[in-house]
């Protein structure tokens, strides 16, 4: 019994002795099986197919068939032809992210810390737009921003817009659409982090000579970093690949890489180029995510 006395005190009764060890060891893998099979069939295989397609002979066509010629040149060709759309994707998504952060952080903070009994209602309000289709909502913005709409009329009246200035079919409209459509993906993870923030820590910070701004920088921000990282990625990745906003709220001058990929596959039927562009986008996003996560990770340690 002396040995028992040294056991760490635990509120749970000791686990029953493991029976049928073999089954227990296999269990995690069995649980993984459906997901792994799904990923293999619907992600890995199409990805391989896409990788192969990006190396097809660009001279082929859908009717004549494609030959596998390891045409690595598809990649530089795609970059050369579409680098404006490519960089525009990252530029628009980046600007939209900054705007979304400026709006979304205070919003998430207010809901998590200051809303009191309105908290759940406000959360529903953040999510509610997603009850209708992405497409319908973007079309609604098209109406709101249209040249004959009340908003443009008002802005023209107060001379914020010239007499024939417009909102629709401008880069601003596309960025606005991106910001609007992906804002909930930023706000929700941020909210989850800020909700757990103990307000007593902020009191302790102010007791230890931190002004409200310093308390934010030293306590609130670092403690919300996990939500901030997740939210930023959940916002930025789909926003970069998006083509609906540029399609509906912009003109070909605002087209992003998503529009080009869309037309390569569905309009021009240039499969090798579409596949090469898709792969380039994926690689660029992966690189950004990797760098970002490493940086965010070390900041958290600091």
């Amino acid at each position, binding site marked *: 019994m002396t040995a028992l006395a040294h056991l760490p005190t635990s509120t749970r009764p000791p686990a029953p002795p493991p029976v049928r060890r073999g089954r227990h060891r296999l269990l995690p893998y069995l649980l993984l099986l459906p997901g792994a099979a799904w990923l293999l069939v619907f992600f890995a295989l199409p990805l391989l197919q896409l990788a192969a397609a990006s190396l097809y002979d660009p001279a082929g066509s859908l009717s004549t068939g494609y030959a596998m010629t390891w045409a690595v040149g598809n990649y530089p060709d795609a970059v050369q032809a579409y680098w404006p759309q490519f960089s525009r994707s990252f530029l628009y998504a980046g600007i939209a992210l900054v705007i979304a952060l400026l709006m979304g952080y205070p919003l998430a903070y207010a809901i998590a810390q200051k809303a009191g009994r309105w908290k759940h209602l406000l959360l529903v309000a953040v999510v509610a737009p997603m009850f209708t289709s992405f497409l319908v909502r973007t079309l609604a913005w098209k109406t709101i921003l249209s040249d004959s709409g009340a908003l443009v009329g008002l802005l023209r009246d107060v001379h914020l817009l010239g007499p024939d200035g417009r909102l629709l079919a401008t880069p601003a409209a596309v960025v606005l659409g991106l910001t609007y459509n992906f804002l909930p993906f930023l706000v929700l993870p941020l909210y989850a982090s800020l909700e757990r923030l*103990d307000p*007593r820590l902020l009191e302790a910070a*102010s007791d230890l000579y931190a002004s409200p701004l310093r308390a934010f920088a030293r*306590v609130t921000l670092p403690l919300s970093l996990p939500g901030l990282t997740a939210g930023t990625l959940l916002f930025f990745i789909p926003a970069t690949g998006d083509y609906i906003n540029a399609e509906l709220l912009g003109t070909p001058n605002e087209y992003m890489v998503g529009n080009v990929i869309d037309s390569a596959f569905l309009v021009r039927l240039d499969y090798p180029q579409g596949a090469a562009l898709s792969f380039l986008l994926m690689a660029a996003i992966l690189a950004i995510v990797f760098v970002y996560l490493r940086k965010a990770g070390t900041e958290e340690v600091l």
Partner: protein
Amino acid sequence: MTRESPADDLRLADLTKRFGVFTAVDDLSLTVPQGSFFALLGASGCGKTTTLRMIAGLEQPTGGQVLLGDRDITGLRPHKRPVNTVFQSYALFPHLDIHENVAFGLRRRGIRKVGDQVERMLALVQLQGYGRRRPAQLSGGQQQRVALARALINHPQVLLLDEPLGALDLKLRRQMQVELKRIQAEVGITFVHVTHDQEEAMTMADTVAVMNAGRIEQLGAPAEIYEYPATAFVANFLGQSNLLTAEAGGRAGDDVRVTAHGTRFSVPAGRARLVDGPALLGVRPEKLHLADGVDRVPAGHQHVGGVVTDASYVGVSTQYLVRTAWGAELSAFAANSGVAAPLAPGTAVTAHWDPRHAFLLPRAGADERTEGRLGQPPVGALP
């Protein structure tokens, strides 16, 4: 640190805090001398934390002032006050290691080289070598010491401690009480220590303020309060008291005459808070002695007769309950010094005391009914 003058006393003037219609702190005024160890003692919910939060600036008073020396700091934001707090919940920063937690205040005041100071402070609270750990990796007692170090390192004019030992087990608690007192003597900072543990307040503090329902009932040195409580609440919150319902009947020389249940007693005028009117005659249980007959009562002592109804042996002493002729139960502690034989329940005894150990308190109708609930169960002769 500059040598503080007495002008650095902490003063609360008519401090009031209301939450809606509820008054948490009620017109509180007190002075904490610079460099003293001051304990704010009271039952849970009596407004101790609210008082501390107003001193720290975390709560804005509804009325009154907080003064440091001649300076009115009532409207000052918390980060501008030379006051630091050890919070009831510790509130350590979970994302910072111990070193950075302790350095937090120094860094916010723009001090660059903090390493030596932090090391010295960690040594003071006996946590050398823990600098690189996170708060979650420490035990409750260690976290408490980090919270203390984090506040102390700033050399505040006043350190506020909100039941900092509440979460510790008894042994560590006693150890930390001694430790805290040692540290206070070493750094010479004013400590305002909030606790609901009367023993803790008495062993640690130079001055104790007993708080009840948002007000100070009595303020003074521990021995002073214990020996001569001002109200029935204090008499029973700080230790126990036998309180006999009595009537004060005016001065007789240096004494005040008292009648209780048809018997005449007297109390020295210096230990009577009233001369005339409804009163409570108080005697501490350890000052109530038991004799086996009226002829054994020492000269000058006053006495009542009764029967032992209960005897509980608690090691250093035996605690007796004695039922008087009119049905009140008195409590008496007899030291187990081996001189007297233990008394069995049922024994007829005479309880006696030196009138210089008795005290006389005013008796208000309401007081009698509430004291029993708020303090420890009164063992005295309450109707």
